[in-house]
C-alpha cells in the first residue's frame, strides 16, 4: 500500500505547494511514513487542523504533508488519576471528559491537540492552569528518521529522564511528528463568573495591581484594548457556588465593575484579521503596551498580549511594539502576516540561545527536512 498520495491544489503551507500527502492512523503508520520520507530525503510539514499553517515563515522546501486527521481519539482517560492520553489529531474543542477538563484554551477554532502543542498556543485560563508545557505529562513523537520515542509518562509526577515533551512543545514541527500527548486534567468547576470593568488605558495598571492584591485566585485576567478608546478588563473566577459568589463580589468592589456569566465575544480570540503579533512582557509592563495605537488583547495577568498589526504600517508598528517589549526584557513575535508584510519585517525578533537551538535541530533533524525555515533563525 502506498504510504502517501499525490497532493491537491489545497495542500499548501503558507503558499508553498506540497507534492504528497500522508494521513497515518497510528504511531506505527506514522513511523513507516517518516522512515520512507527519510529514505527519499523528503521535506516534511505536519498538518493538524490547518489553522496555523500560515504561522512562521513558509517552508524553504516542501515535499510531504503529514496530516493527522486520522490520528484522532482518546487513547485513555483515567478519571480517577486525572489524566488523559490523546492522539495528536484530536480536535481540542469538544473533548468529552465527563466532568473533567483539559484546561488548555484554544484561541483558534478547529485546532488539534498536536497543533496546539507544537505551536504552544494558550488562552485566558493560562493564568491559573499554565500552558501546554505545564499540562503535558508525556509525549510520543516520531523522529525525522522514523524512529519512535516516548518521554514522560502517564503519571503527573515524574522526573525520569529529560523532559523532551517541553522541548517539542512550541517547536513548530521542526523536531519531529507528535503522535500522542498525555495531559493532566482538572475537575470542571461548578460555576464561574466574570467581572468586567471598562476604563481609560491610563488606569489599567492600577486596576491590574488591585486584582493581584486581592487573594481571589482568578482563572483569567484578560484585557481588550481597541486601537483607540477605553480598555475593558475581564477577570474570571471559577469554583464552588458559594466561593465564586464571594470572590466575584470582592472583584466588583475592587474594580468598580459588574459580575456577569456572559463572556464577551472577544474572549479568548486573537484580535487580528491579517497580521498579528504575540507580545510578552514582565507583568508590571503590561500597561506599556496599551497606548501603542493598535488593538491589543490578551492575558494581562500573565504578561501575554496579542496585537492586531495594520498591514499598511506593519514595519513601523512591529518595530515600535518590539522595541517596547524588548526594552523591558520581553519578546515580540509576528505570528502571522500576509506575504508582502513578511518580506518587510523580522518575524521572530531577537532570540537568545539561537546557537544552542541550532545544535538541537542538527541532532534531531540533521538533514533539515522538518519544516525547514519555519522556525526561529531559519531553523
Amino acid at each position, binding site marked *: 500500500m502506498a504510504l502517501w498520495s499525490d497532493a491537491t491544489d489545497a495542500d499548501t503551507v503558507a503558499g508553498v505547494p506540497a507534492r504528497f500527502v500522508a494521513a497515518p492512523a497510528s504511531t506505527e503508520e506514522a513511523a513507516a511514513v517518516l522512515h520512507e520520507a527519510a529514505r527519499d530525503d523528503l521535506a516534511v510539514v505536519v498538518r493538524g487542523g490547518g489553522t496555523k499553517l500560515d504561522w512562521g515563515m513558509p517552508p524553504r522546501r516542501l515535499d510531504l504533508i503529514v496530516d493527522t486527521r486520522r490520528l484522532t481519539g482518546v487513547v485513555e482517560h483515567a478519571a480517577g488519576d486525572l489524566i488523559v492520553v490523546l492522539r495528536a489529531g484530536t480536535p481540542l474543542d469538544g473533548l468529552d471528559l465527563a466532568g473533567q477538563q483539559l484546561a488548555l484554551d484554544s484561541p483558534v477554532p478547529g485546532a488539534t491537540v498536536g497543533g496546539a502543542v507544537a505551536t504552544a498556543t494558550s488562552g485566558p485560563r493560562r493564568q491559573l492552569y499554565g500552558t501546554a508545557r505545564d499540562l503535558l505529562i508525556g509525549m510520543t513523537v516520531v523522529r525525522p528518521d522514523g524512529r519512535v520515542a516516548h518521554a514522560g509518562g502517564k503519571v503527573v509526577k515524574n522526573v525520569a529522564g529529560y*523532559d523532551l515533551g517541553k522541548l517539542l512543545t*512550541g517547536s513548530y514541527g521542526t523536531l519531529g511528528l507528535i503522535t500522542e500527548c498525555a495531559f493532566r486534567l482538572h475537575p470542571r468547576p461548578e460555576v464561574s463568573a466574570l467581572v468586567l470593568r471598562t476604563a481609560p488605558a491610563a488606569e489599567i495598571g492600577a486596576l491590574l495591581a488591585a486584582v493581584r492584591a486581592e487573594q481571589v485566585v482568578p482563572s483569567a485576567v484578560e484585557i481588550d484594548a481597541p486601537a483607540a478608546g477605553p480598555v475593558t478588563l475581564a477577570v474570571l473566577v471559577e469554583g464552588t457556588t458559594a466561593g465564586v459568589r464571594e470572590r466575584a463580589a470582592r472583584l466588583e468592589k475592587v474594580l468598580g465593575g459588574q459580575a456577569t456569566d456572559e463572556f464577551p465575544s472577544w474572549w479568548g480570540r486573537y484580535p487580528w484579521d491579517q497580521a498579528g503579533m504575540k507580545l510578552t512582557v514582565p507583568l508590571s509592563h503590561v500597561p506599556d503596551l496599551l497606548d501603542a495605537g493598535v488593538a491589543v488583547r490578551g492575558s494581562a495577568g500573565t504578561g501575554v498580549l496579542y496585537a492586531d498589526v495594520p498591514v499598511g504600517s506593519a514595519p513601523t508598528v512591529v518595530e515600535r511594539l518590539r522595541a517596547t517589549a524588548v526594552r523591558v526584557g520581553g519578546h515580540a513575535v509576528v505570528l502571522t502576516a500576509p506575504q508582502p508584510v513578511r518580506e518587510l519585517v523580522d518575524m521572530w525578533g531577537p532570540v*537568545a540561545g539561537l546557537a544552542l537551538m541550532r545544535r538541537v535541530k542538527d*541532532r534531531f533533524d540533521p538533514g533539515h527536512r522538518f519544516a525547514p525555515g519555519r522556525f526561529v533563525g531559519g531553523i
Partner: protein
Amino acid sequence: MTTLDVLAARLRAELGADRIVNDRQQLRTYECDGLAHYKVIPGLVVLPRDAGECARTVRACVEAGVPFVARGSGTGLSGGALPHAEGVLIVTSKMRAIVEVAPDDERAVVEPGVINLHVTKAAGPHGYYYAPDPSSQQICSIGGNVAENSGGAHCLKYGFTTNHVTGAQVVTPDGELIELGGRAPDTPGYDLLGAFVGSEGTLGIATRVTVRLTRLPESVRTLLAAFPSTDQAGAATSAIIAAGVVPAAVEMMDALAIEAAEAAVACGYPGGAGAVLIVELDGPAAEVDAQFDQVTALCKASGAFELRIAADPAERALFWKGRKSAFAAVGRISPDYIVQDGVIPRTALPEVLHRIGEVSRAHGVRVANVFHAGDGNLHPLVLFDDAVPGEADRAEEVSGAIIDLCIEYGGSITGEHGVGMDKAKYMPRMFTDDDLETMHLLRCAFDPAGLANPGKIFPTPRLCGEVPRRHRAGEATPAELF
C-alpha cells in the same frame, strides 16, 4: 604533575586560592550527597563566587578534558551530585545572593546557592511565596532544585520546580554563559529552559535563576485524619479527588512510619491508626471553607476514626512535623534504611501497597510507607541493619522490587528525587533504547564531549559523534541571518 594538578594550579591563579579545595581531608567532606552509600572523593573542589567564576571553571575543565559535577547543598537523594574521582566538583554554596524580589512582576531572581525557604522568606513581606517545597526546603538550594526539578508536598496543586522557573542564566558544558527564558513568559524558540530544568546537571550549571512567586493564599486549612488501614485512607483520597477537589496536599503515612515519627518528634498522631492522612486546602476563604466540610465528610465516610482540624499555624506545623521528619525518623526504629521514590497512578495505591506488603513479608524486610497520596508518589522506607550479613542485599532487592511494581502499574521510577547515579540502571525498564537515544540527542547538543556530570541518568555511556551537515542551496548560514 597530573592533569588535575595543572588544572588546580590554573584555577588557583585565575580565581584565587580561597576558591579551591584540594586537601585530601577537606575533599572528603564532599564525597557524597544525601544518598550516603555512594561515596567518591572528588579530584578537586571549586567554590565559585559568581557566574563568571563558574564559567571560567567550566572552561578550564573543558580545555583540560576533565569532567565536572555541580553541587548545591548536597541534599539530593539519587546521587546526582556524586563527585567524579578524576573530576572537579563545582559547589555553588558561595553563590547565595537574592538578587531581586520583584512582587510587581511576581518574580524573584536568585543565585543557585540560595536556600529554597529563603526565597519564600524574602517574598513573604510582599504577600508572596515560592511554591515548590521539598521536605528539605530548609537546607536545599534553588540550583539543586532546578537540576532535579524538585517537587514537594504541595506540588499536587501547584506543580514542580519546572512550573515555577521562568528563566535561568546557565553555564553550558562548553563554558559559555547563556540566558534561557527570562522574566517575561514564552521566550521564542525551543523551550531549552524546560529541557534544562530536571536535567540533573548534565546540560550545564544554573548560575542565576528567575522564579515565579505565588500570591499567598488567603486561607489554609489542614486536617489530620486517622484510619484503621491504608486501604481506607486510600479510599478517602480517591473520594476527595473524585469530588472535584484539588487539595494543596494529601499526604499519607502508614503505621510503621507513624511509629517512627512518634519516636523521633512526638508528633502526637492519634493512637492505633493503621494510616493517617494530612489533607491541606488553601485558597480564597470561601472556597476553602466550602470544600473543607466536604473533605471532612468524605474522610468520615471512608472510615476515619479520628479527625483533627488544625486550629492555628502552630498546630498545622505539628501535623506536618511528623510527615516532614519521617525519612530521618525511621533512624529511630532501624539502624539503616533506603528511601525509595517511585510513582504509580494514584488509583492503584491500595493494590500496590498490598503488593509492597507481600514483597516485604517474603523477604523478611520491614517497609515503612510515607507518600504524597494525592499524586501517587510513594516513598517506601526499606529498613535494614547493615551489621547483619545479607540484610543490605535483601533490602536492596525489596527496594528494586518496589520500582518494578511502579513500572508494572504504569508509573515512574522517580517522582522527585531524580535518576542520578542510583537509578540509571532502571532507566531501560521504563524507556526503550530509542527513547534513551532520543534523550541523548539533547545531551549531545548541549555537551558533545560528555563532561557535564557523566555517569548520571543514562545507564550506559554513549558517544555523541559528529553531526552530518548538509547545507542546501538557499539555506542561510547563521552569519547571514544575524
